[in-house]
């Protein structure tokens, strides 16, 4: 009986076992761990409580102050400073100050710090994003990160695997974001509980990395432990380019694929050629329905950015829709590139100019309003269309505000129309 890609990566990192099966508890060696300005201060406090003089490996830890930077208040500034001081004291290279900082799940792959075959944990639920590289990556808590920084290990329960098979050629304006919102609507917000989502099919073979990251990013929104896509030529091209450009300490990686006789808890097939862009209504990411079903939903704010859809191809797509258009007078447009490299590309390619000429804003990289942090908080009763990943009660501001999740083209079209709109309507 064979293993899935998730099981193979876990087995190769597990301590003291020769075989594994779903529901087994294992202690596993990690290749990389990460935390941010919200979660890492607790990890640092817990780590210091152990009284250890060294971290397990100075090059395998990243501390990214992406949530509240540029610091929104004194307390947030203090939290970022806690990370910076800890990194300096323990010789951790991967602390990213404002100016090179980006949203962690876009920044770390871009820098070649996370590689195919890795076992990655992060004190951030969207750590599952990195599964797009063919790595096992999962979100954990701050105490887990403290333990990992000290010992390079994590305890894990081996997940079962749900295989998602996407077939066909998507229509224009249908992106990876729509494919994953469609699956979350099918599975429900806890349909992937204690499961890996293995994302496969010819529709995925044709997706570039940006869209693959968007898909794995939202595995957690189906309650899954990780999302994962087997590495192929597209993955290797991306990874080799990142290594060439940034020269990370690790340059070799391992291509892992599922066995032909691997065992799956469930297999779901989706024909993407029939799909329309999907919009998920408040207050659950599983409320996805075709965009055409939303009639006259007035929109006060559009947010384009985040670890889900703040990458170059996302901004390019939004700029295509907004080129020569104006944002509706009743609507605000907030565009936030996920990293400095993406920011630079948006400037040099003219996307930034398009957003500004349309009457929108173009901001510095940050998680910003996605989690209701800053840079675009919603007032009572306000409605937003966002390319982010969650639309829970109060997520982007007031408990009585409303977030609809969409792809960047739908978000841009909605900014122009002032209501939820299909890009083809423009």
């Amino acid at each position, binding site marked *: 009986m064979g293993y899935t890609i998730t099981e193979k990566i876990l087995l190769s990192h597990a301590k003291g076992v020769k075989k594994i099966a779903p529901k087994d508890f294992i202690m596993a060696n990690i290749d990389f761990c990460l935390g941010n300005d919200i979660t890492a201060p607790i990890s640092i406090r817990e780590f210091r409580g152990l009284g250890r003089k060294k971290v397990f490996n100075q090059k395998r830890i990243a501390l990214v102050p992406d949530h509240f930077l540029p610091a929104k208040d004194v*307390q947030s500034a203090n939290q970022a400073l806690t990370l910076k001081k800890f990194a300096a004291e323990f010789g951790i290279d991967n602390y990213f100050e404002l100016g090179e900082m980006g949203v962690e799940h876009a920044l770390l792959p871009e820098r070649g710090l996370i590689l195919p075959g890795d076992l990655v944990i992060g004190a951030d639920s969207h750590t599952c994003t990195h599964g797009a590289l063919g790595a096992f990556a999962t979100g954990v*808590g701050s105490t887990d990160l403290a333990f990992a920084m000290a010992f390079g290990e994590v305890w894990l329960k081996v997940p079962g695997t749900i295989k998602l098979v996407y077939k066909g050629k998507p229509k224009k304006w249908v992106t990876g974001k729509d494919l994953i919102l469609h699956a979350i609507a099918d599975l429900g917000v*806890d349909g992937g509980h204690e499961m890996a989502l293995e994302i496969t099919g010819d529709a995925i073979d044709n997706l570039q990395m940006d869209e693959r990251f968007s898909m794995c990013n939202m595995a957690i929104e189906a309650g899954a432990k990780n999302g994962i896509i087997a590495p192929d030529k597209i993955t290797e091209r991306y990874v080799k380019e990142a290594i060439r450009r940034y020269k990370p300490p690790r340059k070799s990686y391992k291509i892992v694929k599922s066995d032909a006789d691997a065992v799956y808890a469930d297999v779901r097939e989706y024909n993407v050629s029939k799909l329309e862009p999907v919009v998920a209504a408040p207050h659950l990411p599983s409320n996805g329905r075709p965009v055409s079903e939303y009639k006259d939903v007035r929109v006060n704010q559009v947010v384009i950015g985040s670890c889900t859809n703040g990458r170059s191809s996302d901004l390019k797509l939004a700029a295509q829709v907004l080129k020569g258009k104006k944002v509706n007078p009743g609507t605000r447009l907030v565009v936030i590139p996920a990293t400095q490299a993406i920011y630079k590309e948006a400037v040099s390619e003219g996307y930034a100019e398009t957003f500004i000429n349309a009457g929108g804003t173009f901001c510095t990289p940050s998680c910003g309003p996605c989690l209701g942090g800053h840079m675009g908080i919603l007032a009572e009763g306000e409605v937003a269309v966002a390319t982010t990943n*969650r639309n829970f009660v109060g*997520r982007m501001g007031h408990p009585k505000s409303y977030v609809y999740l969409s792809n960047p083209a739908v978000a841009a079209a909605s900014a122009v129309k002032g209501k939820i709109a299909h890009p083809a309507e423009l």
Partner: protein
Amino acid sequence: MKLKGKVHKFGDNINTDEIIPARYLNTSVPSELAQHCMEDADADFMKKMKPGDIIVGGKNFGCGSSREHAPIAIKAAGISCVIAESFSRIFYRNAINIGLLIFTSPAAKDLLKGDVAEVDTDKGEIRKAGSKKQYSAEIFPRFIQDIMKSGGLMAYAAKRRK
């Protein structure tokens, strides 16, 4: 250990943004987080609750972000344990790692707002005070029991690595 406390009932998919909204995440001090515990699910929760009370949730309790601030806020508020039909994965491990008692049990369905619940934490037995009907909770695997008995993951780490 035996716990007895008044039930505060919540529905399915209670998420970490409701348990401790992100606007309060510019601190990690437990007592400060506790002041806003459950605020976006029930704005008056902290006025209604007393230390020792019990939170009862539905399915997928604690879904959403990885913020450990969520179980920390609940623990620091003085809630003795959380009972739910199921817990989201990261909340589940965070609760174990920081020593907040959690029980996965069908009792979560039948316990109602204002009930008094009794929990035998060693046996994993739950019942409504004054009722004979007894519910069992999912027993933690040995591995997890060791972490919990040590008082959380870091205490377990300190013991193992000395």
